[in-house]
């Protein structure tokens, strides 16, 4: 069984998890996903155990990606269902090089096997052993990033809800800032623009890891997305819906003027 495969070629959800396969499919469909490598559930477990052969194999596979890495978990479930609980989606940013990868993989394995992750699985009726695969990509250095739901998750209305902030999207995902909030309808009409309070920006640091920096005051309440970018995001939402279906939770980033798709998963709870 293949344990390591390039993101463009990954297709088996039972081995690599639906997140990896989703991203692979997105790449194949021409969506702007940063290239990367998918590591299977079994090999991630082997690395977490300390198996030297496995570690070596993984390090070699990601070397072509170069320097700082973004490491994302991709949960596998036997029935192929999306285990979309936020806690299962541990993302480790700025793993500085291939050598540090094994401890990153161990952390991810444990996060999938943590008390809360296991308890959550049981709560939603999954009693089988979790298997967690991983996607490794080159780390971006975005100007703006955030999350977009292709359907309003609170009201269920048919509109895009976008939350954005400066720097790495973790600031939005982890709720470190009150992000800008935008609602855009399917046709691209901007229904609402609400500037947030974006006091913190997360950036990667040389040598590994990320740091929280203060945002200059004049930028904290300035809208970080313009009309053109909102249209691009709306287009991305439509394309994702075409590829995956409705009700998607999308993580995106804009780096050097290019919009990237970082994650695209199903939203489990939409509307009242």
């Amino acid at each position: 069984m293949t344990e390591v495969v390039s993101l463009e070629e990954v297709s088996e959800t039972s081995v690599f998890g639906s997140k990896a396969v989703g991203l692979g499919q997105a790449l194949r469909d021409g969506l702007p996903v940063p290239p990367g490598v998918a590591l299977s559930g079994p090999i991630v477990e082997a690395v977490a155990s300390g198996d030297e052969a496995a570690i070596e194999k993984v390090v070699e596979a990601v070397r072509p990606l170069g320097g700082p890495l973004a490491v994302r978990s991709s949960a596998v479930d036997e029935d192929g269902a999306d285990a979309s609980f936020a806690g299962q989606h541990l993302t480790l940013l700025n793993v500085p090089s291939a050598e540090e990868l094994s401890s990153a993989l161990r952390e991810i394995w444990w996060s999938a096997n943590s008390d809360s992750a296991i308890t959550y699985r049981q709560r939603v009726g999954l009693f089988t052993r979790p298997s967690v695969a991983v996607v490794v990509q080159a780390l971006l250095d975005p100007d703006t990033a955030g999350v977009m739901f292709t359907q309003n998750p609170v009201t269920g209305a048919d509109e895009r809800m976008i939350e954005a902030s400066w720097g790495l999207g973790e600031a939005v995902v982890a709720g470190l800032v009150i992000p800008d909030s935008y609602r855009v309808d399917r046709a691209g009409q901007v229904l609402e623009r609400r500037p947030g309070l974006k006091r913190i920006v997360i950036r990667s640091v040389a040598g590994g890891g990320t740091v929280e920096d203060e945002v200059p005051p004049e930028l904290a309440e300035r809208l970080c997305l313009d009309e053109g970018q909102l249209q691009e995001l709306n287009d991305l939402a439509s394309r994702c819906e075409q590829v995956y279906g409705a009700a998607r939770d999308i993580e995106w980033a804009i780096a050097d003027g290019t919009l990237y798709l970082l994650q695209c998963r199903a939203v489990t709870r939409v509307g009242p």
Partner: protein
Amino acid sequence: MAGAPVEALRCVPLFADLNESELAQIALLFKERRFARGETVVKEGSGGAAFFLIDSGEATVSVGGAERADLVPGDYFGEIALIDEGTRSATITATTELVCYGLTFWEFRPLVLENAVIGWKLLQSMAKKLRAAEENQAQP
């Protein structure tokens, strides 16, 4: 090297009566897990998924906010929830950088079932805890 170092298991009372090859086999099942100082390792009331033994560092055990005990290398914890599938009976917090080796339920259960010696050891330690708990209650 996969799994926990055999030395780490040897000083754990739970595994004291096993021979070298049994120890080696069991050691393979473990995975290292590190916790930062101050990190909550296990939270009272939450569901339990793993059993840990401490290789280096220290932790405290508290129940209902009150500190009950300290844990040092060689100590283990977390087995109760894995046995009765209940919730964590105490909160364990790392007081220093903590290096543990852990087993999840899926390794732990077969391990105990297949290894009567380990089972017996667990029963002994449970009995001690039970006695201590009863004595506590009896006192005013």
